[in-house]
C-alpha cells in the first residue's frame, strides 16, 4: 500500500507540472488508478468490471447532467477517445509480461467492445428526447441509490453478483465474496451530488474529462474527502502556481498522513477492539484500553489517509476541504459531528437533513419530533453508508439519540464557559463517541452488548 501511495505521489508531482490538457491528464491518471488499485475480489473478473462500472457510471452521469448542446464539443470527443485508448491499454496489459501494470482479470476484447457499445447505445437512446433529460437524471439518482443499497446489503449483493455473472463471461458458479468495490461509496455520493444539483439547476457545466477527473480524482478515491464539483472545477481549469507554502503544506500533510497511517494506526490496530479480544477479555480496565485504542486507531487511520489525499491534491494545485478538525477535542456531540468526516456530514446535511427538515415543517410536525426524526434518520443513514448491518444501524442510532439529547439539553441548560466545564464536555463527548465505536467495531449486537457489560462492570 505504501508503494502505491508513493507511486501516486510521483504521478501527482508530474501532473502538477503539466500545463496542457491538464484535465485529461488528471482524468487518465484517475481512471488508471481505479483499475490499478482495485483490490482482488471474487469472481475474479470483477477486478475489471467494478472499475469499468465506476468509469461507465461517471460517463453516463456526465452525459445526463450536461446540457445536450454542450456534449458534442471537440474536447469531449477527445476525452472519450483517450478513455477508449486507456481501456484498450488495460485490456491488452496482460500481454505486456514484465511491463504489465494492471492486476485485473481483463475480458476478451469482444466482451469489452460489447460493454462499451451497450453503454454508448444506452446514452444514445436517452439522448433522442432531449426534453426527458430530467427524467433520466431522476432515474439515474434512484438507480444509483438502489445500486448503493445492492452493494451494501449482503443479500442484495449476492443477487446482484449472481445476476451479473452470466453476463460477465463467467460460466462456472463461484461463491461471491463481499464486493470490494474501490471507492464506490465516495464515487456514488459525488455522482448523487451532481445529479441533484443538476436537477436544481445549480451544477456548473463540465467537460467529460473534467467530470470524470472530479468523480474519480485519484487522491480521494479510497477515503475521500467528498469535494463539490463547483469548488473543484475552477481549481482544475485555472490552477494557481504552487507557492512555497503549497510545497510545504504538501510535504507536511503527506508525511503526517503516512506517519499516522503506517506509524501509529497500524500498530494501534494490534490493541484495538476486535471480535477476538472482545470475546476473551473479562477485565473492564483492559476493555477500556481496547476501546481507547480503537478510537485512536480509526481516527489516525482515516485522518491519515485524508492528510495524504490533501497533500497529494495540493501537488496538483487543488485545495481539497478538510475532513477532520480535532474531533476528539470537541466539547459536545454536535461539534464532534461538525469536525468528524466533515464532508460526509455536510453532504447529508445538504441533500438529506435540510430537505427533510423543510418537508417536516411543511407537514407541520411538532418541532421536537421533527428534530428527533431528522437527526435519528440522518445518523441511521450515515450508519448504513458504512455498511448495511445491525451494528452500523446501532451505531447510527446511538449517535442519533445522542445528538437529539444534546440538542434538547443545549436548548435548556446554559453551562458556564470555563476551562473546567469545557474539559468535562470534551471528556464526556469523547467517551460517548468511544462507546459508540463498540457497535461500529464488532460484527454483532450480541458481541457489542457483551463488551458494554464488561466496560461498565455488569456481571456477565
Amino acid at each position, binding site marked *: 500500500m505504501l508503494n502505491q501511495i508513493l507511486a501516486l505521489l510521483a504521478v501527482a508531482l508530474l501532473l502538477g507540472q503539466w500545463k496542457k490538457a491538464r484535465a485529461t491528464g488528471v482524468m487518465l491518471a484517475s481512471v488508471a488508478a481505479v483499475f490499478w488499485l482495485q483490490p482482488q475480489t471474487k469472481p475474479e473478473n470483477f477486478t475489471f468490471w467494478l472499475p469499468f462500472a465506476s468509469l461507465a457510471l461517471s460517463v453516463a452521469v456526465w452525459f445526463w447532467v450536461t446540457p445536450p448542446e454542450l456534449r458534442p464539443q471537440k474536447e469531449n470527443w477527445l476525452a472519450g477517445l483517450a478513455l477508449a485508448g486507456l481501456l484498450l491499454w488495460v485490456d491488452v496489459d496482460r500481454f505486456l509480461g514484465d511491463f504489465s501494470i494492471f492486476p485485473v482479470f481483463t475480458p476478451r476484447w469482444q466482451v469489452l467492445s460489447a460493454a462499451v457499445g451497450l453503454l454508448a447505445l444506452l446514452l444514445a437512446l436517452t439522448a433522442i428526447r432531449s426534453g426527458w433529460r430530467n427524467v433520466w437524471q431522476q432515474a439515474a439518482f434512484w438507480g444509483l441509490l438502489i445500486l448503493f443499497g445492492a452493494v451494501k446489503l449482503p443479500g442484495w449483493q449476492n443477487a446482484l453478483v449472481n445476476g451479473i455473472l452470466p453476463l460477465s463471461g463467467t460460466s462456472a458458479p463461484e461463491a461471491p465474496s463481499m464486493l470490494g468495490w474501490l471507492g464506490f461509496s465516495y464515487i456514488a455520493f459525488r455522482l448523487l451530488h451532481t445529479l441533484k444539483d443538476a436537477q436544481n439547476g445549480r451544477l456548473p457545466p463540465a467537460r467529460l474529462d473534467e467530470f470524470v477527473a472530479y468523480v474519480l480524482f485519484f487522491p480521494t478515491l479510497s477515503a475521500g474527502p467528498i469535494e463539490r464539483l463547483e469548488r473543484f472545477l475552477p481549481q482544475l481549469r485555472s490552477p494557481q502556481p504552487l507557492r*512555497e507554502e503549497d510545497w510545504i503544506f504538501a*510535504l507536511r500533510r503527506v508525511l503526517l498522513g503516512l506517519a499516522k497511517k503506517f506509524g501509529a494506526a*497500524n*500498530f494501534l490496530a494490534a*490493541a484495538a477492539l476486535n471480535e*477476538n479480544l472482545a470475546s476473551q477479555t473479562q477485565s473492564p480496565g483492559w476493555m477500556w484500553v481496547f476501546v481507547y485504542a480503537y478510537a485512536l486507531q480509526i481516527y489516525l487511520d482515516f485522518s491519515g489517509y485524508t492528510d495524504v489525499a490533501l497533500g497529494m491534491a495540493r501537488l496538483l494545485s487543488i485545495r481539497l476541504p478538510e475532513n477532520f478538525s480535532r474531533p476528539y477535542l470537541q466539547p459536545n456531540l454536535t461539534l464532534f459531528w461538525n469536525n468528524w468526516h466533515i464532508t460526509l456530514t455536510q453532504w447529508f446535511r445538504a441533500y438529506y437533513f435540510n430537505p427533510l427538515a423543510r418537508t417536516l415543517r411543511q407537514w407541520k410536525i411538532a418541532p421536537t419530533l421533527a428534530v428527533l426524526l431528522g437527526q435519528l434518520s440522518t445518523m441511521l443513514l450515515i450508519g448504513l453508508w458504512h455498511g448495511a448491518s445491525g451494528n452500523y444501524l446501532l451505531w447510527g442510532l446511538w449517535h442519533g439519540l445522542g445528538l437529539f439529547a444534546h440538542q434538547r439539553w443545549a436548548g435548556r441548560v446554559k453551562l458556564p464557559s470555563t476551562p473546567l466545564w469545557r474539559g468535562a464536555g470534551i471528556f464526556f463527548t469523547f467517551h460517548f463517541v468511544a462507546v459508540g465505536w463498540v457497535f461500529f467495531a464488532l460484527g454483532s449486537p450480541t458481541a457489542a452488548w457483551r463488551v458494554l457489560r464488561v466496560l461498565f462492570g455488569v456481571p456477565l
Partner: protein
Amino acid sequence: MKNIRAPWLFAKTLAFFLLANLLFALITPPVGKISGYNWLFPGRERLPFGAGASDLNISVDDLNALFASHKISQAKQPGEYRVLLLGDSSIWGELLQPQETLAAALQNSVACPGRTLRFYNLGYPHPSVQKDLLFLQEAQKHQPDLILWALTPFSLTPKAPNPLLLQNFEQVLALTAQYSLPYDYANAQAPRSLYQKSIVGQRDSLARMALLQALGIAWGATGKDTAPLTAYPPLSPDVKGSLAFGGFDAPQDLSQTFLWSYLEAGVQMNPHTPILFFNEPIFVASGKNSDVRYNAMYPRWAYDQYRSLLRQTAQTQGWQYVDVWDIIPPQGFTDNPLHLSAQGESLLAAALQPYIQQNACP
C-alpha cells in the same frame, strides 16, 4: 511560514532522512532490546510467532526482540532452577494455547523439594538444530540450569536458510566458525549491505518489532498469543506408499546426513549445564502402507536408521538421551505427525519427568 524556503526544506528533510539511515546502518543499534514486555506487560510464555495482529501474535526475526518479549528475560529468582526447552513447532505448541504446551505441562507436573523449577518454552516453529544452537547461545545470558533439547530427523538435516537465521546472519556465521560446524551460510548470502542495514532496508523487521510491542497489550489482557483452535482434519491412519525422505527416493545410508556436530557444539557451549536430548514422539500410522511409512513425514527405513544413529551417537558421546518416539497414542496428535494435543503434551511430560528429576532434584 514565509521565511521557510521550500527547496531548502526539502533538501534538509532529505539530508536528515539519508543521515538517519546511514547512522542506523553503521551503528546497527540493538532496537530489539527495547521492549515493554516483562515490565509494562507480562513476558510471553513462548517466543512470538504468527501471522499478525488478528492472530494475537507476530513473527519477528530479530533475536534480541524474540528474547526480550519472552519471560526468560526476567531476572532469575533466588532458588530458581531454570529448565529450557529447545525444539520445533511441537515444543512451541502449534495449535495450542501457551498454557497447554509441553513446558506448561512440565511446570504443572514436575517439582523438586527445596527448589523452584521453572520451565521456559524456547521452541520455535522451524525444525533446525542451527536455529536451536543460536537460541541456546542467546539463552546463556539467562543462566539455564538444565536444557531439554527435542530432536527429529528433519531438525537434524541441513535446510535452506530461513528468515530468522538470515536476519541473525552474523551470529550464525560466528557460531559455525567457532565450533567448526560443517554447514554455514557463507555462500547463501553475502554480508548485509549498508542499505540492508539501514532503516529503509530494515523497515519490515522494524515494523514487526513495533507491532510485537503493541500486541503486548492483547497478551497482557488475554494471556493468549494465538487465536482459539479451529477445527483441523484428523490424521489419517493411511499413508502413501512412497519411500521418499528428504532428498532421497529410496533407502540410503544416512550416517553422513545428520548434523550431529551441532549437538556437540551445544554440549561444548554448556560444559556445566546438563543437556537432556530426547527424540520427539511421532504419530505412528496403522492403516494402509503403514508397513512402509510411520507417517506422512517419515518412511520406516529412514526413521529407524535415524533412531539407531542418534542412539549410537549419544552413547559414543556420553550424552543424556531419551527416546520417546512411540509413547503417544494416535489420538494425542492434532494436525501433523509431530504436533501434540494438550493431552499428548501431558503424556510426554509424564514420560520425561523422571529424567528431569534425576538432573534437577538433588
